[in-house]
């Protein structure tokens, strides 16, 4: 497997719409070459020494700028940082030379057991320091800035003393990282834990937001309460599109990716969603012109 740089290595991700690429779409992407601006993959899916999936991503990155999005580092865990995991991320970065690298503002393991989920942190000064110092440590190990994504949550903690935007802002200021704004997550949190989604967007440091995620969610009734499950299994709902429009009016046209992980449709559906995002980005550019 070649890991040598190519003419397309480290191509910057454009301030346009891209898609999350999953292995089921590898062949279709190369065959159909959809008109999307860039692709993003889950870093952990390309940790290995070789195989058809790595070969497929090598081909895909020849045609599209690439972002690596990690789901397994659990930066906010009180457990020690998994340096072996970070080393594998570093290897993937060396191999694929992505334009962007991102992780989540979450924790994931306790006493060595990994729950392989994005678990919420309390919004406290202690958690700010812990997460920011971990982010800074990882940035030092990787030799580059990373972006941190806001989570979707199904609960909040009584110990939280900061709002979510104050928490993320403090982490950005202390660690020097960037932000990946997941608009669907903000919307999901507005229903699940009462987040004021527009205040959240207003409160984030504008210069730090370097990427935006969009996805669908599922509505579920749990007793008397409606809960939104962030399952990335459907088209972006209208309410999330409206919040996205609000976000890009504030932050300007930012690289935006359509995430889809369950009930995966044909690649053309993802490309269609990306086109819908692109039209909104073009609209913001038109306003700015």
């Amino acid at each position, binding site marked *: 497997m070649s890991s040598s740089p190519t003419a397309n290595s480290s191509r910057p991700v454009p301030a346009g719409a891209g898609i999350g690429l999953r292995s089921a779409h590898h062949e279709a992407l190369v065959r159909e070459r959809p008109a999307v601006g860039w692709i993003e993959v889950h870093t952990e899916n390309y940790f290995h020494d070789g195989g058809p999936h790595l070969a497929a991503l090598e081909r895909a990155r020849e045609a599209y700028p690439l972002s690596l999005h990690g789901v397994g580092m659990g930066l906010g865990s009180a457990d020690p940082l*998994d340096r072996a995991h970070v080393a594998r991320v570093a290897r993937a970065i060396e191999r694929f030379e992505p334009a962007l690298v991102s992780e989540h503002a979450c924790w994931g*393991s306790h006493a060595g057991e990994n729950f392989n989920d994005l678990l919420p942190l309390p919004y*406290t000064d202690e958690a700010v320091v812990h997460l920011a110092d971990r982010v800074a440590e990882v940035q030092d190990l990787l030799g580059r800035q990373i972006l941190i994504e806001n989570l979707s949550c199904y*609960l*909040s*903690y009584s110990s939280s003393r900061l709002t979510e935007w104050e928490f993320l802002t403090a982490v950005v200021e202390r660690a020097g990282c960037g932000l990946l704004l997941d608009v669907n997550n903000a919307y999901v949190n507005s229903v699940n834990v009462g987040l004021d989604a527009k205040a959240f967007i207003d409160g984030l440091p504008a210069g730090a937001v370097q990427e935006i995620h969009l996805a669908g969610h599922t509505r579920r009734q749990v007793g008397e309460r409606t809960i939104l499950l962030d399952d990335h299994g459907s088209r972006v709902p209208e309410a999330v599109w409206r919040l996205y429009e609000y976000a890009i009016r504030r932050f300007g046209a930012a690289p935006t990716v359509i995430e889809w992980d369950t009930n995966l449709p044909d690649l053309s559906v993802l490309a269609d969603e990306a086109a819908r995002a692109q039209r909104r980005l073009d609209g913001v550019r038109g306003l700015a012109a």
Partner: protein
Amino acid sequence: MASLPELQARFAAALRGDPGPIEHDVVGDGLEAAGRLDIYRNNARAVFEGALERTYPVLRRRVGEDYFRQLAHGYRERFPSRSGDLHGVGEHFARYLAETESDSGYAWLAELAELEWACECAFVAAHEQPVGPQALASLTQDELGLARLRLQPSLRCVASSFPVLDVWRANQPEADGRAVDLARGGQCVLVSCGVDGLELALVSAAALAFTRQLQAGVPLGDAVDESGLDLAELPGVLGMLFSGGLFTAVIGPSLESDSK
């Protein structure tokens, strides 16, 4: 107020089935803490089961959804995930099944799991440039016996007492899943992965032992002797390995560098 490590310890206890300690740390807001924690507990279980199912699709098809879920639950309790990378979650599944299913009517499941784990490992291994039989041409007869033949990193050798390859083939997505006579006896299988995907080949017990010797770096002559491979079978076995692109280097006795 609980410290961050304390809070995560309580949350982890809830994920393991004891929501009591963390309930007071969670804001209810119309849904009690236990209900909110259930979402995370179910998600963690589903993610683990999903990863195991992707690694063991044949086993999952053979035993059905309910029994697979039961196996996954017991396996997760014994071998919880230790990594943020889910691909290694199934590493100990064959061992777990050997321990728990050996006295049941499902003793063959452990061997099937061993084959599927070999497939998983082969699928993500590096692929090196293969060499052809002409790589042997420069060696004399004496040198040939002392030569070491390097194999593809993806190659895995699986020996079973049940016909696991037949079961595997009968339960591929495009196959009809017909029942396989488990009394048919064991099978020896070479698993590898090239540019076109997985390759599984049925071989004799001696050929499998011979391949394992070569993998261990044993010279060709000794590998034949140690494995009990009939010399008459040697050309056929070498031909199969060469044609499968499974040799990556021939290292002659007088050469420390690879002969390609």
